[in-house]
């Protein structure tokens, strides 16, 4: 069931206008939309396609190819957990379970109240301090369940 989500068309238009003449402009445009809005609204595809003289299918194909581009707005908090090998060697799988339980949200999902999105990442380059996670843009290393619970209270935003 898709709910129509509102998105900031003016912001997207400004980004597109600002970057459309860059070589290979689609990626920088999508990147900026993702960074500024936190997602790439599916409804913005037509606007982007038109500005770059591409088909909607082409733009959609690119948006859906890359893991970073979200198709829906994220929760107010975003937790990203590394699931790659080095972090697994230091207990990442158990950590994922703990976080998922603690936040009451499945990996790859946003909680129903919109408080948090929990995402998997594959290596944060912090493998010498595994397991690693990112809470609202802040990187944390050697994360134990206890350290996570502590960090969550520190980094949490609740509006």
């Amino acid at each position, binding site marked *: 069931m898709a709910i129509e989500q509102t998105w900031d068309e003016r912001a997207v238009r400004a980004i597109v206008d600002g970057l459309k003449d860059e*070589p*290979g*402009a*689609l*990626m*920088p445009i*999508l*990147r900026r939309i*993702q960074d500024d809005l936190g997602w790439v609204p599916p409804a913005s595809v037509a606007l982007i396609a038109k500005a*770059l003289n591409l088909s909607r299918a082409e733009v959609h*194909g*690119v948006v859906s*190819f*890359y*893991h*970073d*581009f979200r198709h829906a707005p994220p929760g107010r908090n975003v937790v990203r957990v590394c699931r*790659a*090998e*080095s*972090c*697994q*060697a*230091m207990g990442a799988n158990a950590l994922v379970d703990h976080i998922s339980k603690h936040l009451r949200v499945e990996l790859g999902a946003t909680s129903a109240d919109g408080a948090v999105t929990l995402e998997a*990442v*594959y*290596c*944060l*380059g*912090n*493998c*010498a*301090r*595994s397991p*690693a996670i990112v809470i609202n*843009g802040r*990187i*944390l*290393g*050697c994360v134990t369940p206890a350290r996570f619970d502590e960090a969550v209270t520190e980094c949490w935003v609740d509006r």
Partner: protein
Amino acid sequence: MSAATIYVPGDSGALSMGAAAVAAAIAREADRRGLDLHIVRNGSRGLYWLEPLVEVATARGRLAYGPAATHDVASLFDANFLAGGDHPLALGPTEEIDYLKRQNRLTFARCGIVDPRSLDDYLAHGGYRGLGRAIELSGGQIVEAITASNLRGRGGAAFPAGIKWKTTLDQPATPKYVVCNADEGDSGTFSDRMIMEGDPFVLIEGMTIAALAVGAAAGYIYLRSEYPAALVALNHAIGAARARGYLGASVCGSGRPFEITVRVGAGAYICGEETAMLESLEGRRGMIRFKPPLPAIAGLFGQPTVVNNVITLASVPVILDRGAKFYNKYGLGRSRGTLPLQLAGNVKRPGLVETAFGLTLRELIEDFGGGTASGRPLRAVQVGGPLGAWFPDAMLDLAIDYEALTGAGGLLGHGGVVVFDDTVDLARMARYAMEFCALESCGKCTPCRIGSTRGVEVIDRIIAGRDRAANAELLRDLCDTMAAGSLCALGGLTPLPVTSALKHFPRDFGLEREPADAAARS
């Protein structure tokens, strides 16, 4: 008296352990005590188990204290650490720490030492001497120096950099490009990140030399999105270099232009493969291109393009500065120079170890790493990232060089070594390898796209204990098909971790029943 200088790394690994709070606490405490302090946010020395590693500049050189937490700060001041006072966290002169002392830091000569935001500091530590040499040489002469150094690509494929540069140099078509591969997707690797955060100018200098060599006027750094701190560091360094004429319309007044743009990826492992990266830079999905044409001949926007890894390019300045002979002196066989190894996973002292090729895995893991972090027996090591082979303890006397690891059925890749203790289940790790391939496949070839999903299912059946021997046979066949029928190394090499796990750790697949084991598992 002038202000004391304190170093608190701004490296994201150090930040992940609270370095920002430690730096703030030090500044506050100094303020409270009325002391004048100059705090430098350096890169990391790569001794990660000691992060945040605080250093103090003294008459005896730099002295290290770590790992420091905010609650240690008052006592550090009480112990007069600014003058090198003794303290439970005191580690002595940084350069004398065994882990560091035993390395050959050529590419990482400045990382963790300089202020990555300061071009002057870079210059004061020998920066831009390589470019100074290069400017006096013709493109062909620069290429000759790189060829003579035997520098091979550090991104994974180990292709000789000189040959690649020569190919691009010889192309009449213009414009040409230099593209730096900063996608560093392999688990267990972080050397690119460390350089970009800790010594970004060396990468910029290396790219500039490459551009002079092949005749390129524009460069791109394709940076993975998981490295936001590197983005800030690179953009700052590019701006500083441009402001001082090291980049721009006339590099160092040579009349030759060179500009660098950083592009950020969007979380696709496959975009680390060079042709997928070029597709992405051109604004498309990261689909692998057929080769030929080689990117060196027809790469970015169809133009001749040198694509090199961060560490390859960051090794160029020292080669130009100190000469190919100097660099070539390190290493063994066909693997010359130094390699920044990255030791990670379940190991007591993880970190960056740059040494000449030829160290054994055991020396790395035991002498440098100090064994497992958990204190349990080591059971398996994965070398070379998610597409690299698994080795049991019995194989750790292998020398770390490209040919030796290939000979042993593995690969060195980008130099990541991930250690696991005896709680690892290699059947689960093999499943993960297939799962990762399915997740990251660009979708162009069936054996990779479909085979990896089938692989997960087959391994699930093995784990569930259904028809183990037959399913293991099926898994091997599937691996053969993927290895033979894939266009690139994602599908082509995913079989490596799977078959090496099967070969060296059959027990985990229930293929060799040991009575105690069988009882424990059923």
